[in-house]
């Protein structure tokens, strides 16, 4: 593996700065955001590099759990922030976080124990990257699906109530928004699987190849990850949409859109 020097990274950074200058000239109004995001990438990844280094040096389930919890809580915040209309109060945060916990953690632990079978099963070299990839993808799926659910429930409130009025159960009245939400949460991973290797070379596989792994072995890992992501995203999306669509009704199955609030 070719090791990168600070100078190598500086050259890449110069390209981003050039892009920012160009967008400034074109008055695209995005240069500031671009630079802040690039800076965040550098700082956040450097920090995580140091954290992983420490974690690898002191393999302990407690430290890894703490790290996993931190990742989960940040992902939960991110899901909430991406909603145009989110559930008010504690629900806005917990629906996404609980669903991510149920799906990502279950799938990751299952893969670590049953499929990879390293000892200890929580070896950070596998556990943290796996959980990270699963959380990242599940987070996107859940965020898209919940956003779609609350938006469609809002837009289709007339239809939902019309169906309630005619004697439909709440689950039947919200069936269309629920189906649309689950579909939109799952479409990104379905597209990614369909295009993998043909249109795009997945990042993890590319990374392993860059690090010197034999391509066929890297491909096997990538297939594993894709399937785990599909399972995790599907599980997380469905549980978030099911919890969310129940929360849209009260105990008398009335549509309660006052439980949503607009994100500023």
């Amino acid at each position, binding site marked *: 593996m070719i090791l990168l020097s600070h100078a190598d990274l500086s050259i890449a950074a110069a390209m981003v700065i050039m892009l920012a200058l160009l967008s400034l000239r074109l008055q695209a109004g995005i240069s500031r955001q671009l630079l802040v995001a690039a800076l965040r990438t550098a700082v956040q990844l450097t920090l995580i590099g140091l954290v992983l280094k420490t974690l690898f040096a002191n393999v302990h389930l407690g430290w890894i759990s703490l790290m996993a919890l931190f990742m989960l809580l940040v992902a939960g915040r991110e899901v909430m922030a991406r909603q145009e209309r989110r559930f008010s109060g504690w629900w806005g945060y917990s629906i996404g976080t609980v669903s991510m916990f149920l799906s990502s953690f279950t799938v990751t632990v299952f893969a670590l124990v049953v499929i990879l079978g390293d000892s200890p099963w929580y070896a950070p070299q596998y556990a943290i990257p796996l959980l990270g990839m699963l959380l990242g993808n599940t987070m996107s799926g859940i965020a898209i699906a919940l956003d779609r659910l609350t938006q469609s429930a809002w837009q*289709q409130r007339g*239809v939902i*109530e019309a169906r309630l*009025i005619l*004697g439909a159960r709440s689950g039947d009245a919200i069936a269309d928004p629920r189906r649309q939400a689950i579909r939109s949460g799952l479409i990104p991973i379905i597209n990614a699987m369909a295009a993998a290797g043909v249109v795009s070379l997945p990042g993890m596989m590319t990374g392993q190849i860059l690090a010197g792994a034999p391509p066929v072995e890297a491909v096997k890992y990538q297939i594993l990850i894709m399937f785990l992501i599909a399972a995790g995203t599907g599980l997380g999306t469905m549980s978030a949409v099911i919890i969310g669509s129940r929360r849209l009704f009260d105990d008398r199955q009335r549509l309660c859109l006052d439980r949503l609030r607009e994100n500023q």
Partner: protein
Amino acid sequence: MLGPLSLGVDAGECVCISGPSGAGKSQLLRAIADLDPHDGEVLLGGQPASSIKPYRWRARVGLLPPESHWWLPTAGGHFPGGTPVAPAELGLPEDIMDQPVERLSSGEKQRLALLRLLANRPQVLLLDEPTANLDPANTERAERVINRFRESGSAAVIWISHDPAQVARLGCRALRLADGRLQEQGVGA
């Protein structure tokens, strides 16, 4: 905000409610249909709403909101069990069931929504200005269909109407909702 009020309607009886906009007429009907939370108590044949599953309650206490909503491409899809009366009795064309919903006029949709509600055979009809978009001939047809349904099924009807002539025509007990209170105005006043 509705004040404390009490209203009893017998089976087969029709009650008309009028009153200024914003007095809470629609709000009252929505509360009876159990669509909005409220502190009151609603009974049907002596049974409180809270003792009946909400979807059963709403199937029996049928609300016709001022605006109709449709979720399937054609009108006919919303009538899995057929129509309770021929569409022609409401002045609707025979082929209306095959028409895409978005091509229907608001008056046609209003009459179809009435048919859709009657197909449920509710014991109570809560009608929120059911003839607001209709011309006089179709208004009369709708009144006839509703009255026949009320008499044959001994349904109780609460009818919001702004038209004193309609209230007189229907021969209902007339009430006025204003300042959060219901006032009796006699029959067909």
